[in-house]
């Protein structure tokens, strides 16, 4: 399972970085979204992967040192909320840039290179 999670995080991050480096705003927004998925999975894994255990101290599992760490779960929740809000904001900003600059290039220039 570790390999699967690591692979998923790696692929998401790789795709995210690739998309963020594109020159148009839509792929960039998609790339930011993929990156935030990757970081959420990553944060989830920072408490170490534990299967089928409650995140409760004092349980029988906890006595064996096998409880699921509750803190990363709380962090992921916070990160999801913030990431969601920021994605909404950057989409609105991209739409505004599309309207004000006349195209969806991140620098606001046409393919020919002239700056609008």
């Amino acid at each position, binding site marked *: 399972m570790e390999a699967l999670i690591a692979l998923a995080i790696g692929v998401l991050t790789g795709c995210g970085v690739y998309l963020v480096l594109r020159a148009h705003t839509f792929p960039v927004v998609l790339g*930011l979204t993929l990156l935030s998925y*990757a970081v959420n999975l990553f944060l989830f894994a*920072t408490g170490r992967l534990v299967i089928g255990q409650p995140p409760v101290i004092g349980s029988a599992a906890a006595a064996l040192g096998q409880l699921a760490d509750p*803190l990363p779960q709380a*962090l992921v929740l916070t990160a999801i909320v913030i990431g969601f809000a920021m994605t909404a904001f950057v989409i609105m900003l991209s739409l*505004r*840039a599309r309207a*004000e*600059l006349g195209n969806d290039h*991140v620098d606001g220039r046409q393919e020919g290179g002239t700056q609008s």
Partner: protein
Amino acid sequence: MNAHLAIAPILVPFLAGVLLLTLRDLPMPLRRWLALFAALAQVGIAIMLLAAVAGGEILVYRLGDWPAPWGIVLVADRLAAWMVLITTLLALFALIHASDGTDRKGRHFHVVFQMQLFGLAGAFLTGDLFNLFVFFEILLIASYGLMLHGGGAARTRAGLHYVVLNLLGSTVFLFAAGLIYASLGSLNLADIAAKAAGVAPENLGLARAGGLLLLAVFALKAALLPLHLWLPAAYAGTAAPVAALFAIMSKVGAYAILRTATLVFGDGAGSLARLFEPWLLPAALATLAAGMLGALAATSLGRLAAWLVVASVGTLLIAFALGQQGAVGTAGTAGIAAGLYYLPHGTFATALLFLLAEALRRRRPASADSLAPDADMPRHALWGGLFFVAAVAATGLPPLSGFVGKFLILKAAAEQPWVWAVILVSALAGVIALARAGTRLFFSARSADSAAPPLPVYEPHSAARELVAIGGLLLLIFALTIGAGAVVDFTRATALQLADPAAYIAAVLGLEGVKR
């Protein structure tokens, strides 16, 4: 009152922001007075906080009274209180300038402004790594609003870059925080510091990667080379009072670097000690050089001021990096003390230049603040004189506080020829850039009989608020100069406190019962 002093700088702007949001239908003058009152209250609270911690006490505020490291703590030590005071003073004058019309160019200016102060104060006071991330997000979200305030194509373009880069930075911050938690098992800064020395060998690589990723994030916020490219366009493109307030924003990154470098990765961190040292000084020197080259190449006063922000961050981090090198108690603390003296000076001086650039934009109809001749502006002697004083301050010429700050940094850098060379040559470049700007802006008026079309009339509103804001910032710089002895004593004490993180850790983790 004292029990809640550590959270007051965070709560007051937050409540003021909420109040201004609910009262958004009030007429503008009333909202301005409310915002001004809130800003004044924050200055008062910041002074009280500074007085409370100046003797070396560390105020710890446990949110929900959960003991650290389980709950989130706010920690006010000398460094945090100093940063809060600088922020509130800068915000007061930026707000006065903004009430001269900038706040009418979009809705909710005052709300977002207060939220920005909320995020800034929180970032300085928090003692928890993930909470630092949350406050960074708050101040960034507010800064997106402020940066785009007023709109316009150039602002939108620079704003898009700024937002995307900072979102990437936030993602990296989360990766870094996750790595730190995975390897050290805590997010409380004091607890991380206490555990850093005993990091398990198999986790050492993770912890180092996490620490260096943190440095990368903070370097992005501080606009350290090579992560500085977003700053000039963003700061030069936004409204003048916003740019003036943003002068403190890049210092947040510098603050975070200093805090983590001294507390978490200080000398007591075992194999993680001095993690930032190999990177910080070269990057800071390159930042200062790049900032001054940019200033030489700038074609408008706004851009020039933005590049000087980059240069001032470079100077600041050179000082902090020197603090990482020397032995604790001697050269090390001298570097940090010099940097903490230079920090308010650099912030106020660059903010001043942003406000002056706006003054020129309003009075020079044809060429605005770009370095080109224009018709004779009204009261040019007054504005030229103000520009001259601001330029002296920004380049660090005597007699103003920039000279004292740079002198202290050079003194702390004894026997380091590279540091001397870069600081002195870049100071010369700064003098040339500002002298050239002043000559172009004030000495070469366009002749009246040229064939150019008649110029639009200078808008005849009073310059009182602009002059209050500019004069206030100048007074702060004068105060820093005259009170240099007292301020340097304070920053030395701050540096000594930072060099010995044991007291901070003990206060937060309650080992000595420093509870208040």
